[in-house]
């Protein structure tokens, strides 16, 4: 009987300790959360944006998407701080990193991964190979053309990026 009481006491202590540990929630540390989310790939980040309002708001932060973009394209991460600022302002003017990913980088990576995946590599290695092949400058060029096409009351829907949006044959 003594052992059982001891056991119960120990259990209570453990639960208290657990309670103390549970007091830490990632949702209380938004910047940390943003830092973590910024390390995801685009699709996962979009999925994460469906979890709760907070995560959704974070998923709309352009800085998070900026981290995602730079992580996934060559030549993005190595820009100097000054270069980073001007890039940021230009991209913001063109529509933001989230839009850049959605319109250009995402489909391009899918296309490259698809063509690489068709040769038998797994999705992760394909994605890595794809990132290696895409450059930020090319994506920005395509993005700027698309942005230009949307200017000034378009008569036709902008189509310069349509070549990226064709579905990849996954047969």
């Amino acid at each position, binding site marked *: 009987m003594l052992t059982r009481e001891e056991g119960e006491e120990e259990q209570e202590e453990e639960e208290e300790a657990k309670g103390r540990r549970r007091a830490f929630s990632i949702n209380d540390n938004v910047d940390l959360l943003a830092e973590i989310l910024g390390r995801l790939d685009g699709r996962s980040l979009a999925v994460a944006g469906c979890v709760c309002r907070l995560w959704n708001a974070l998923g709309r932060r352009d800085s998070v998407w900026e981290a995602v973009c730079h992580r996934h394209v060559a030549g993005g991460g190595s820009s100097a701080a000054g270069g980073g600022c001007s890039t940021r302002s230009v991209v913001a003017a*063109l529509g933001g990193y989230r839009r850049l990913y959605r319109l250009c980088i995402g489909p391009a990576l899918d296309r490259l991964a698809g063509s690489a995946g068709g040769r038998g590599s797994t999705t992760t290695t394909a994605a890595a190979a794809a990132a290696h092949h895409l*450059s930020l400058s090319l994506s920005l060029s395509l993005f700027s053309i698309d942005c230009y096409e949307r200017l000034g009351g378009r008569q036709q829907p902008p*189509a310069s990026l349509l070549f990226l949006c064709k579905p990849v044959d996954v047969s």
Partner: protein
Amino acid sequence: MKREHQETGAGGGGGYHVATAGDMTGAKGKMTAGPSMGTEDDDCGVDELLAALGYKVRSSEMADVAQKLEQLEVAMASTAAAASDDASVLPQIASDTVHYDPSDLATWLDSMLSELNAPPPPLPPPPPVAASVHHHHHRFDVSTASAVSEPPAITTVAPLRPSDAYDFKPVPAPAIASGGRVVYGLDPQSEMIVSPRDQKRKRTCSPSSSSSRGAEAGRARGSRTEGASSAKPAAAVPVVVVDTQETGIRLVHALMACAEAVQQENLKAADALVKHISVLAASQDGPMRKVAGYFAAAIARRIYRRRPLSQVDRALDSPALDDLLHGHFYESCPYLKFAHFTANQAILEAFSSCRRVHVIDFGMRQGLQWPALLQALALRPEGPPSLRLTGIGPPQSDHSDALQQVGWKLAMLAKSIGVDFRYRGFVASSLADLESRMLLERDGNEGDRDDEGEEEAVAVNSVMELHRLLARTGALEKVLRMVLAVRPRIVTVVEEEANHNGGTFLDRFTEALHYYSSMFDSLEGSGGQAAEAGEEEQQQHRAMAEAYLGRQICNVVACEGAERTERHETLGQWRGRMARAGFEPAHLGSNAFKQASMLLALYAGGDGFRVEETDGCLTLGWHTRPLIATSAWRVSAAATR
């Protein structure tokens, strides 16, 4: 190209067997020659010219083959003369058809020669569908035949040139009437260079005439008859009786024959051929059909060109429509994007560390090249320069100011990304009307903004515009002198990589046929993916792009003189012209190559595209055929003096 063979009929021999050249020399009854695909041992030493057309002939056997062709012609002429009784042979053909594979010419000839003793019975009247995939049942309506059976004799020469092997002569009328069979003979009265399909037109014959001469000949039974008969002496032209079994090849043959007819001013033959081409083209599908359709329409236009241009034609020539089609061409295939990106890279590199830059664009259109340059300039490590853009465009028929609208859009974009931007548009119906001082002078209100100490770096950009100047003598030289006077840092020239400005019509036609076939193939290849929501739009873009190319085809084929503006020339020719004008080449760097390769990797079906670098110029092509070339030029040191 697939060679499909079927053996029908009760009497048909056993299946296929691979026939090698040495096999069929015996004189036997029926012989069946199977398709010779899969004969790797035949591939070595195969004559390439013929192989490209689908015929496998060993180069070593060429003389032998030619000799046998003559023998065959003689034999067929003799058997044609001898045949007199249709009725008796008709049942034979109905029950027993033997199909030969003509791609292995040597074998086929042997089998023909061995069988050619009795007149081949005519085919049973097939349905009046002009062209179907299975050529053996082709039957062409020959009611228009009489118009074309004219005496203008067009002869060719050199019996042993492989290309001559496909100059076909029409059947002498008596031979047709006798056996209901199409035979080729050397009939001086009715010689004409036509392709095998066309001879149907020329004969009013019984419904049993058919294009599959080979099949008919193949139905001969019996022992071999060799015979020097009363055949006319060969006018040094071999007669080839071949059954191509491939409407694609026949289509090409028909097109070439038509072009030759046009070149020799044989307009009636050309007219008949054009109709025939349309009929043949309907049996194809995909890019070949479209290309053939456009070429046939262009030839028809050329034949009837003495009629003045109708209202519709004039409306179709509007620059607005041209811009619209150009836009769709931009979207559906990577050629223009490639051109823009590589040219921009060259301009960017030339402008490094300049604070004031001026770009002169010879063909402004929708200005799709410049957003990317604006963005790249904005993100330069040393910060954006102040950019001045001068755009040149053709006069618009509806008085709208397309150039100004484009400039306004670019200005909005430039403002949002923080590049100091000024724009000027020039309307000129031809580049030769411009003068250098017009391009260099600044607007009045800019005077106080400029710091006179800083020089402006100038770049001249021409995407597919220079070739139009070749229509007028001296225009190109004048424009290049003007460009020199502007003192540019760099001149970027993008042109189609083809020689459509050759001496004879036939040369131009052949070149254009190959070039646009590759183009249409690439459009098909890059556009074709699973049918999804975006597919509809893609198809629309592709159709418009094809229309854009169709207009070019029409211009190359149907127009002459000052009207023919699509005078494409090869990179080598442009190099010569630029060098003579006082420019030296500037190498496009590896950055341009990398960017172009990356861009191409993004295109689905991009496997077919090839980016190549030749002497500092980049070309983009479809498989082995380069289609568009970008080059960059500097004013040479000699010219500055």
